[in-house]
């Protein structure tokens, strides 16, 4: 099959421009969680808050760290990680969850992908409530570098779209991949500095930090949330990941886009 870049790019452009539709689809899922519940999507937030606080208090004792430093670190890392890993898990199911639509109408796949990313961005903003409370507790002052989290979030979302497109296609074709993605993410959460700080590693293990794109993805938002600017190396790795990821996705998407409905 020859790649059809024109068709693929048209899908991406039309899907992105149809903000009314993806906005609506994204909100709809969030609204569904509000229905007939008292706190709605804040349930996700609440369970994350319990997790972060309990784990934060116990582990800061375990590692003799100041809870006022450890809790904000853990919280900001977890918020970012939860958003990013949900892109991957929901992305794996994105296309076969939308099978009904894909087989009834001509829909833009990019539109479906953006709605997944948008929905999780909304959830991230719900979760920010935890961060605010933890900052108040820890007495973390608000600083200008907090603004750097905005471009960081934008870049994560930009990566989120290709991840959903890529994994959505791969998992529609090979159903086992979905399980594989879930288990890889589970392990990655522990080997990426989220629960522990990068400077706790010594020797060659530092590679787990320097060459781990997931660390940089997390840190590009976490560092500003802690009042620091992300390092240049972090920006470079994330930029490389964005370009490489979009390049690969564009190639695969333009080759196999037309096969997607046949796979479902």
């Amino acid at each position, binding site marked *: 099959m020859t790649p059809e870049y024109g068709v693929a790019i048209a899908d991406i452009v039309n899907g992105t421009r149809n903000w*009314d539709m993806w906005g*609506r689809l994204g909100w709809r899922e969030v609204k569904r969680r509000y229905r007939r519940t008292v706190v709605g999507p804040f349930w996700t937030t609440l369970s994350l808050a319990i997790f972060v606080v309990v784990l934060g208090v116990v582990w800061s004792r375990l590692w003799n760290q100041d809870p006022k430093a450890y809790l904000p670190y853990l919280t900001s890392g977890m918020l970012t990680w939860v958003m990013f890993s949900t892109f991957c898990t929901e992305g794996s199911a994105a296309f076969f969850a939308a099978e009904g639509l894909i087989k009834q109408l001509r829909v833009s796949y990019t539109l479906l992908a953006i709605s997944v990313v948008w929905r999780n961005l909304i959830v991230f903003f719900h979760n920010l409530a935890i961060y605010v409370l933890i900052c108040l507790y820890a007495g973390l002052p608000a600083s200008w570098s907090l603004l750097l989290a905005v471009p960081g979030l934008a870049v994560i979302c930009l990566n989120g779209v290709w991840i959903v497109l890529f994994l959505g296609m791969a998992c529609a074709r090979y159903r086992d991949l979905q399980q594989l993605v879930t288990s890889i993410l589970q392990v990655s959460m522990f080997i990426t500095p989220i629960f522990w700080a990068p400077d706790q590693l010594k020797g060659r293990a530092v590679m787990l930090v320097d060459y781990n794109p997931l660390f940089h993805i997390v840190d590009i938002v976490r560092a500003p949330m802690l009042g620091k600017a992300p390092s240049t190396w972090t920006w470079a790795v994330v930029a490389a990941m964005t370009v490489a990821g979009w390049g690969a996705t564009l190639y695969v998407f333009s080759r196999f886009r037309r096969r997607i*409905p046949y796979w479902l």
Partner: protein
Amino acid sequence: MASIKLEHVYADFPVYGSQVSFRKVLFNKAIGGLLSRADDRSKRVTVRALSDVTLEVNHGDQLGIIGHNGAGKSTLLRLLAGIYEPSQGSITIEGGVSPLFNTSPGLDLDDTGYENIVTCGLFLGMSRAEIAAKTPDIEAFAELGEYMSLPVRTYSTGMLVRLGFAIATAIDPGILLLDEGLGAGDARFANRVRKRIEALIGRSSIMILAAHSDSMIEQMCNRAILLNHGKVIADGKPKDVIARYAEMNREAEAAPPPPPAEDVSAKDLEDLVGAAAKG
């Protein structure tokens, strides 16, 4: 001016059994080419749904597609809608296509009737302004009254069908693709359904309808094609094509069943049945 042109269009559906998965690909890679690629290709099971279809439909055509179950009617409609793309051949379409296979794309049971009008309308390609303009008409046709502000979860099946149908038929289609079975409801509703479909067809430039029922095609179309095993075997006035279809059915009753299509060998069929039994 709307027009549709199909040139030598084929549609092949790959069949992925439960065993054809990531594991198999990995193992094939691991064995490293011991199994020859050509051999592998020939083992790949595909079902040919359409075969060498060449067709031209022009402004004003109301085309009926006739054929048995599995003759390729739905596949042809889905190709025209741009949902499936042909595995070979080309399709050129001028004008906007409105497929109405499912009356309520994107329907959300937790949303109210009004909210669903917006969601389904957007999916059907209407703009916000068009939706707002059409809403009174949809309300009037669906006859749901106060229920419009309640979640559609609380509707009866009949009410849901009325709403979905009212939304779907509110569009201004260029090229309208209809699958039979659209529209149902109680007897009093049936008459109104017919009138509304007729008005919808009147607004369209080209209408294509797939149906089993001869009477539907005869009433609603001015041209018909007959599909058999994915091939167009007759094209002409609905009356003549229906007569040909009836003749074909008589022949089929007299003759033994036809052999399976050439792309599916007996061995493949066994595999398929085996996979289906396992899955």
